[in-house]
Structure formats: structure tokens, C-alpha cells
């Protein structure tokens, strides 16, 4: 489904300019890094990233930094507050004439799903509520991956993590459903929020382009296939991300002032196909197939899309 007035219609429309150098300390095949690299092409170089503790903290290890722009590491819970401080400081210094307006920067929060859904939810909610003019980029690898893949509230039902291992009591692994961060954010009615996937660079680029027209919170959740955590070969990240979209597991959508629109309507490949690509779901198929669990996952996907396709 093409977006109206899209700037990017095909892959070749995307800039060849890079703002993140290769050779970072992140894992090979990190889906989140690919999504960030694509986002940066639209954001440009006048950016300050405010990072929350997570995998991406390792992007900047003294004395190296892969970015062409600025970086501020804060803590796990308060990157949006850090963004507030920088935004406020830039605004007041420009207003007072202490800083030239051409020195202005886009403030971009970079955070994993653990910080976004759990420990940093309060500071994120507050920043959206204050109408902070910033970008928020959540790389969602669906667990605390940097510490070895423990359950977060973004972990999907049925996934194995190091703290929700399948066993006698809970053979399905994670019992809880993935928290609906998109809807939590949407309740704040920010000017722009969207989900993106590194498998859909044109969709991603158009969303960042569209967001730049709005002043206020511009929020993104990027699906971030995680080779070591999800347990798959590092060359498959993009394929797995694409499958997540094609099965309907990862809906690509946006909301402008709370109005939701899906930007890709999938053809609904079987959910099982997606689950089988990653060993974090291996226990659903071996040694015996947990049909009920797989059915629950299917049902959740169906119910989600019924709501939108019917309306």
C-alpha cells in the first residue's frame, strides 16, 4: 500500500549517504541497527542522540563513536528527560542569542524495548505529555537482549527467554502477551507515531520523512530481529523481519494525532512459518508440537487484523 505524497517510492530513492560508520560493537545482523541506519538517512547529520541503557549503548565506547553527529548517554530510565534537557537548553540559548539558530539540532531518543515498555515508560509518557519536540526510536528486539535475552513486557507470548524458559509449569515459555506500546503512546495523542521494519526501507523512510513535518513527539517502534536472542543465523534478519510483516505479526502502521492507518496490508502468510525461523520458538514444535499455544498466537493475529480490516 503506497503512501499518499510519498517521497520515496522505490529503494533507489533512499540516500546513499551514511551517518553511521560500519564496524560497531553491535552484533552481526542486528535488525535494530539497520533500521537506525535507514532512519538516519532521513534525519540527516544535525542530530543529537540521547541514548538509554541497552544494546545500543555499545555503539559509543570510548574513544570511538560511529556517528557523524552528537551522542549523549543518559541512563536506562530517563533518556526522554535527557532529551528534554537538551531541547530546552538549545531553545533558551538560541532565544537568548547565546547560540546561533543554525546550530540547532534534532533531538533523538534511542532506546530498547525494555527501557521503552518498562523502566522508562514514565519518563516517555511525561515527555509526550509535555509535547517535547523530539524523535523517539525504540529498537524492539522483544527482550532485554543486551543482558542475555531476559523477558521484557515487549516479549511476545510463547517466546523463550532466559527468565521465561519453557518448563513443566509454563511449557509455552512467556505467558504474558506483548504490551501494546503503540496504543499506550497513541492514548497521549502525539502528532506522529509509527511502527517500522528494516525489511521495508521505503515505508520506513517515508514515515521518518512525514514525521519531520510535525512539531512535537515523533515516535517509532522498529522491529529489531536479534540473531543471538531470537536464535537464528545473522544473515536472516531482514528475511525474518519481512516475514513478521507478511504474517501480520508486525503490523506496519502510523497514527497522526491518534488516527491509525496501516501502511502495509499483508497477505497473511501462515504464522507458523515465522515462528519456525527462530529457535526462541523451538519449544512450540519440539519435542512435541504445542498446538494450543500456536493457535493462541494465530488467534491473536487474526483478532488484531479483524478489528482493522472490518472497519
Amino acid at each position: 500500500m503506497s503512501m499518499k505524497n510519498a517521497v520515496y517510492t522505490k529503494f533507489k530513492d533512499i540516500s546513499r549517504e551514511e551517518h553511521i560508520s560500519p564496524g560497531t560493537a553491535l552484533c552481526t545482523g542486528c535488525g535494530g541497527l539497520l533500521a537506525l541506519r535507514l532512519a538516519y538517512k532521513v534525519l540527516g547529520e544535525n542530530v543529537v542522540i540521547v541514548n538509554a541503557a541497552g544494546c545500543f549503548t555499545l555503539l559509543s565506547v570510548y574513544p570511538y563513536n560511529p556517528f557523524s553527529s552528537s551522542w549523549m548517554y543518559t541512563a536506562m530510565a530517563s533518556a526522554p528527560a535527557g532529551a528534554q534537557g537538551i531541547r530546552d537548553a538549545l531553545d533558551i540559548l538560541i532565544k537568548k542569542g547565546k547560540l546561533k539558530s543554525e546550530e540547532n539540532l534534532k533531538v533523538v531518543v534511542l532506546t530498547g524495548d525494555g527501557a521503552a515498555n518498562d523502566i522508562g515508560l514514565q519518563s516517555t509518557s511525561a515527555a509526550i505529555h509535555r509535547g517535547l519536540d523530539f524523535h523517539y526510536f525504540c529498537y524492539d528486539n522483544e527482550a532485554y537482549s543486551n543482558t542475555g535475552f531476559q523477558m521484557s513486557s515487549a516479549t511476545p507470548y510463547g517466546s523463550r527467554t532466559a527468565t521465561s524458559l519453557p518448563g513443566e509449569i509454563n511449557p509455552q515459555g512467556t505467558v504474558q502477551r506483548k504490551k501494546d506500546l503503540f496504543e499506550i503512546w497513541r492514548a497521549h495523542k502525539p502528532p506522529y507515531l509509527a511502527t517500522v521494519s528494516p525489511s521495508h526501507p521505503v515505508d520506513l523512510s517515508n514515515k521518518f520523512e512525514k514525521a519531520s513535518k510535525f512539531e512535537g513527539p515523533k515516535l517509532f517502534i522498529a522491529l529489531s530481529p536479534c540473531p543471538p536472542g531470537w536464535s537464528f543465523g545473522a544473515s536472516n534478519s531482514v528475511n525474518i523481519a519481512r516475514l513478521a510483516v507478511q504474517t501480520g505479526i508486525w503490523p506496519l502502521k502510523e497514527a497522526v494525532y491518534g488516527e491509525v492507518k496501516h501502511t502495509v496490508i499483508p497477505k497473511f502468510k501462515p504464522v507458523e512459518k515465522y515462528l519456525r525461523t527462530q529457535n526462541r520458538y523451538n519449544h512450540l514444535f519440539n519435542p512435541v508440537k504445542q498446538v494450543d499455544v500456536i493457535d493462541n498466537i494465530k488467534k491473536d493475529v487474526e483478532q488484531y487484523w479483524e478489528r482493522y480490516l472490518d472497519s
Partner: protein
Amino acid sequence: MVKEMLTGNYAAAWGARLSEVDYVPAFPITPQTEIIETLSQWINDGEMNAKFTNMDSEHSMITAAGTAAATGARVFSATSSQGLLYGYEMLYNVTGWRVPLVLVNVSRGLSAPITLEPDHNDILSTRDSGFIQIHAETCQEVLDTILMAYRIAEDERVLLPVLINMDGFYLSFTREPVEIPCKDAVSRFLPEYNPKHAFFKASKPMSQGVAVLGGSAYSYFKYQMHLASLNVLTVHDEVAGEFKRIFGRSYSATEAFKIDDAEYVIIMSNSFTIKGKAAVNKFREKGLKAGLLRLRLIRPFPSTELKAFLRGKKAVAVIDQNISPGSGGILFKDVTTALYHDPDRPERILSFIGGLGGKDIGHAEFKHIVEEMEKSIETGIVPETQLLYTKNDLEHINNLLNIAGNPLEGLEN
């Protein structure tokens, strides 16, 4: 110059206003709230050209303060007690970022049990964070110290944030005559902030708060903070000297009260010092050679100065308005460490805990302290740490316990 009757909180707000701060991120907590309310109003009315932002917690507030300071703004904020602890993680972060912001803590005892009146467990829990710490005795000192704090923090030899402590209620809500310095004098003392090392701007990308791997890098940056903190011992005196020249008021790292010929010295900090000074005056009337030292600069700790003041004294008693359960008074250790290697150190150093949760320290308690010092000199026995707790206090708590009833009653059958 006319003096006005100001609360400690209002004096703190004046300190920030006169320092022409650019940014105030804020979160309310008793007994600090009047500071941010006042600043909010002034900024809203256009009397201060600054940005005020209501934050969602002290953790967020200190984060925003730090990143704004790293961007090059002069930043002020205030908190108390639980709030300081809620933002604790960020205290260590902002010192590591080497940003020269100023934070006022209005002391209040820590929960549980939750309470309102002051002691210093809140502020002293942050003593190892790298913040410079200055503890104030009067409302005037609160205002003056804020002006000095920016000079100290922004000095290239320091570049560390400053925490200024004042006691909740005893200063925060108590009006005292305060001289509000004129703007011209302040700008001669504290010029506009033009940072050399703090910026986030398009033309000059910077990385801040970057991770380090391995102990050699970590040790290097941590020790830099220690060395920078030690520089404050020099910088503070320079700044205080200039402050005296312009404003006429004099502050030293440690305040000595009737110390020169004193044989018995009481060491205290913050607003209760005024009670100690009154006690010393009474002792002097009776011919006892008593004196008092007020610890003002707590971090860095002015060991050399302290040693010089206490050389040859008979006995010293430290009153800690804090408690480290299982260990005793916190500042007692700093004092004894400073004195240990001095060949002419006082013969006895006694430790007392008093004023917890704002409990009064009356003259009877000061009298007890002096008697204990004398007794210790006579007998050669140094008593264990003692809690200053009077018969009245005991009666009071016994009344409360009676009203509350015995929780085990009725459970026997």
C-alpha cells in the same frame, strides 16, 4: 543595603535568579517546593529570562538538568530527601559528565518512618557521588553560597556540580534578615556563563557520557573527578576572598567559633550550629574554654584546615545529625581520619548522634557533651557513640507507645 525577611527557600530562589540561570527543571517535594514555585512565577512573569520545565520525577529532573548543562546552559534545581534518593542514579551520572550545575537540597529525614523535619542522611548519602557539597547555617548563607557555587563549579579546575544543603523547616520555612545583593555587584562577581567544554551544537559534534570498557579507562576518569574535587579547596578560598571583597561577607571551608583558646571543641554542621554557638557562649560565661567548628565544605573535606584548627585541643566532640546504622555518625569518621596522623591532635575525640528527624538539641545536651569530654580526659576512657535523647524525649515516645497499644495484645489466645 536594606535587608529583607526571607525564608531559606525564598533566599535560594533569589540566589538562582541573581545567578541568571538559563534553565530550571523542577519537581515538587516538601520542604523544597517554595523554591521552584517562586522560580516558576518569576519566569512566568518575565522577571527571569529562563526556561522552566515541570518534570515527572527527580530522576528525570536531574537527568534534564545534566543534559541541559552539557548543552551549555547554566542550570539550577532543588530537591529534598526522598527526591534526592529517587534521583540518586543520576547524581553519579551528572558528576561523570562534569557539568557545573547547582542543586539545592533541603534536608529532611529519610523514610521509613516517613517524616518531614531534617537530618542529614539524605545529603550525606550522596557524599561519594562527586558533587561538591556545601552546608549552610543561615538563609543569607544559602543565597550567597549559590552565587559562589556557580563560580566554583564553572571553574576550569573543577567542572563538577555543587549540592548546597539547608535544613528543612529550620531554614526553609524560617524568615531571617537577608541582604539581596544588587545585580551589578553580582555580575561583577559572577559573569555570564560561556562554557568552553559544554556544548551540543551542529557545527561541533560531541559525545558525552560515553561507555568505557576496562578498568584503566574507568579509573582514569574517576580519579580525575577526585583531583578536580580536591582543587575546590583552593578554588573555594579564592572565590570566597573575592566574594568578601565585593559583598563584605566572609565564608571559609570550616567556620571557627571562639576556637583560638578553646580546650573543648564541638563540631557540628548546618542550622543547628546556632544552638551550639549559643551553648558555647553560655559555657564561656561560666569560664569554660569551649569553642565550635562548623563543617561547611563537606566535599571536598578540608582535612588540613581542620587539623590546624584542632591542634593541641584537649577534647573534641562531633555531633552527627545523621546515623549510619551499625557504624555510627558519618562525619565523625571524616574528622577522625583527618586528625589521626597529626602528632599534636586532640587527646580525645567523642562521637554523638543528635537532631535526627529534627529533634531539638537543648542546652542540657550540650552540657552533657562537655561533661563527657571532661570525664574522658580525667578517666582516659573514651565512651562509645551516644544518642542525644533526653528524659522528655523518652516520656514523649512512651506516651505514643501507650496510645498505639501493644501490638501483641489479644494475640495470646
